[in-house]
C-alpha cells in the first residue's frame, strides 16, 4: 500500500523569506502540525515544528528549575520575540529533512517513525514538490482499519 493513498494533503506552506512575526502568527493560528517552507515551484526546503517556534521564544540557558525562580516570564518572552524579529522562515526552519516519497510503502513509513522521533514526515513527489505529510496517527489508523480489519478504527 502506497502512502500517497492515505497521506494528509492539507498543509501550511510558507516562503523562505516570510518574516518572524508573520510566521509566528500563521504557525500559531493553523491547525496543522508543521509549517513547511517551500520555494516558488513548491519544492520542500525546510520544516518548522511547534518546538522550533517555542524554542525561539525562551532563552537557551533557561532550565525548568531556573525558570521557577522568576515570578513572571512574560517580559523575557517578549524580549526574545523582539530579538528574533529580524529572522525569516529560512532562519528558523530545519534543513536536515527526513522525507518520504509518494510511492513509498506503509511499512517503510512505519519504520521511519521507529528510527526517529518524528511527529510527522513530509511527502514529496519525484520533482521534490511537497504534496502531503503523514503522521503516526494516520499510519496507526490505517494499520488498525485496513490491515487488521478492525471496524471500530475507521
Amino acid at each position, binding site marked *: 500500500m502506497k502512502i500517497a493513498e492515505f497521506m494528509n494533503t492539507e498543509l501550511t506552506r510558507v516562503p523562505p523569506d516570510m518574516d518572524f512575526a508573520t510566521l509566528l502568527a500563521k504557525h500559531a493560528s493553523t491547525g496543522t502540525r508543521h509549517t513547511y517552507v517551500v520555494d516558488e515551484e513548491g519544492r520542500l526546503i525546510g520544516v518548522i515544528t511547534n518546538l522550533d517556534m517555542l524554542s525561539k521564544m525562551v*532563552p*537557551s*540557558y*533557561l*532550565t525548568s528549575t*531556573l525558570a*521557577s*525562580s*522568576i515570578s513572571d516570564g512574560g517580559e*523575557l518572552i517578549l524580549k526574545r520575540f523582539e530579538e528574533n524579529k529580524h529572522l525569516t522562515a529560512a532562519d528558523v526552519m530545519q534543513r536536515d529533512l527526513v522525507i518520504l516519497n509518494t510511492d513509498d510503502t506503509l511499512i517503510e513509513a512505519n519504520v521511519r517513525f521507529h528510527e526517529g522521533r518524528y511527529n510527522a514526515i513530509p511527502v514529496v513527489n519525484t520533482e521534490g514538490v511537497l504534496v502531503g505529510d503523514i503522521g503516526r496517527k494516520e499510519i496507526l489508523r490505517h494499520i488498525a482499519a485496513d490491515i487488521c480489519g478492525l471496524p471500530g478504527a475507521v
Partner: protein
Amino acid sequence: MFWVATCIFVVCYAAIVSEKIHKTKVALAGAALTLILKVVTQEDAFHSVELGVDWNVIFLLISMMIMVNIMSKTGVFQYVAIKAAKLGRGNPFSIMVIFSVITAIASALLDNVTTVLLLAPVTLLIADELEIDPVPFLITEALASNIGGTATLIGDPPNIMIASKAGLNFMDFIVHIAPIIVLIMIVWMIIWKIVFGKRLHVSEHLKVRIMGMNEREMIKDPKLLKKSGVILGLTILGFMLHGFLHFEPATIALAGAATLLLVSGEDPHHILVEVEWPTIFFFIGLFIIIGGTVKAGMISFMSVEMIKLTAPTADNSLVLSMVMVWFSGIASAIVDNIPFVATMNPLLVEMAEKIFGGTGVDALQHAKMLPVWWALSLGACLGGNGTAIGASANVIIVGMAEKAGKPISFVRFMKYGVPVTMLTLAISTAYIYIRYYYFG
C-alpha cells in the same frame, strides 16, 4: 627508543594543539603506539610509579566528579547564586564581585567546569532581567574559576598532578598557594571596580526584578543537599588531614564518593555515566606517552638543557622559579595545561634529583625545590586565563554564551584574559620572590 618516544610525543602534542582530532583519541592512540613499539612495557604502564599511569590522579578525578554530579542535582549552586544576587541588591557590579567570589570558592573545592556550567545560566538570567550585556560577567566567572581552582590541591587538575608527583598534601597548597590566590582576588576586584564600577548601572525598576526572584525554588532535594553537604565537608576535612592520616588524596576522595553514592539513593548508572570519561582516558593515555619519554631518556635530556638554561644550584633556584611561572603561564594560555604539566612533572623530578641529589621526597621537597613546584602550579593554572581555549572553563563559557546569542570572540576574551593573566602572573612572581627568596 629515544627517537621513537620523541616522535610519538611530538606528533601527539601537535595533534592535541591543532584540535583537528579529539585529544582523547590522540592520547589513547599515542599510548597504544608507545606500548606496541615497546617503548614501555604494559607492566610499566599499569604498575610503575615513575613510568606508568598515576592512579592517584585518576581516582581523585573520578571520585570528585561523582561527588559533584550528585551535588549538582540538589540545586544548591543556583540557590546560592540567586541568593547572592539578592544580597547585592540587584546592583550589577556587586553581583559581579559576589559571583566571582562564589565561583572562586566553588572552583577551589569542586571542578571548574561544573562550577561555571551551573552558574553561567543564572548569570545569563540575571543579565537578562537587568537588561545588561552578560559577556563581562561570564568572562569574569571563567577567570575567577581558574584563579579559585589554583588555590587547592583538588581545585584544578594540574595541582592534582603536581601534588601526586611531588608528594605534596592538601595543606601544603592551603599554606603556600591559597594566600596568594586570596591576594590576587582582592587586587583583581579592585582593578575591576575601576574598569566596571561606573559602567555597570541599571535603573531601580530592573533591580526590583532581581529582588523578586525566588531562590527557594532552586532546592529540589533538601535531604540530598544535607547528606551531600555533610559528606563533602567530611571529605574536605579528610583532605586537610590526609598528610597526618597517611592517606593519599585519592583514598579520601574515593571514600567520600562511595559514601555519597551509598547514602544518596542515586542510581550509579546515572551518576557514573556523567563522569567525564573522555578526560579520564585523556589522562591515562597521556601518562603512558610521558612514561615513554621518561624511559627513553627524552625527559632526562630536556632536564639537562633546562639546568644549563636556568643554572639552578642546591642553594639557589631563583631563575628556575621565575622562568617556571612565566613559561608555564604563557604555555598554558596557548596549549592545554594538562599535557604541559604532565611533561613538566617528570622533567622537574629529573632536575631535582640531579641538583639536590638522592631520590624521592628529599629531592622533590627540598627547600629550594618547593618554590619551583609552586611556580609551576601558579603558572599552569593562572596561564589558562589568557585565551578562550586556555582552560576548559573558558571553552564552556564561550560555548554557552554563543548558544544564548551572545557570542564572545577570541579577541574579546583576550581583552579580559590577557591583562588578568599578566596581572596574576606578575603578582605570583613577586610572591614567590619575596616569600621564598627574599625572606626564604
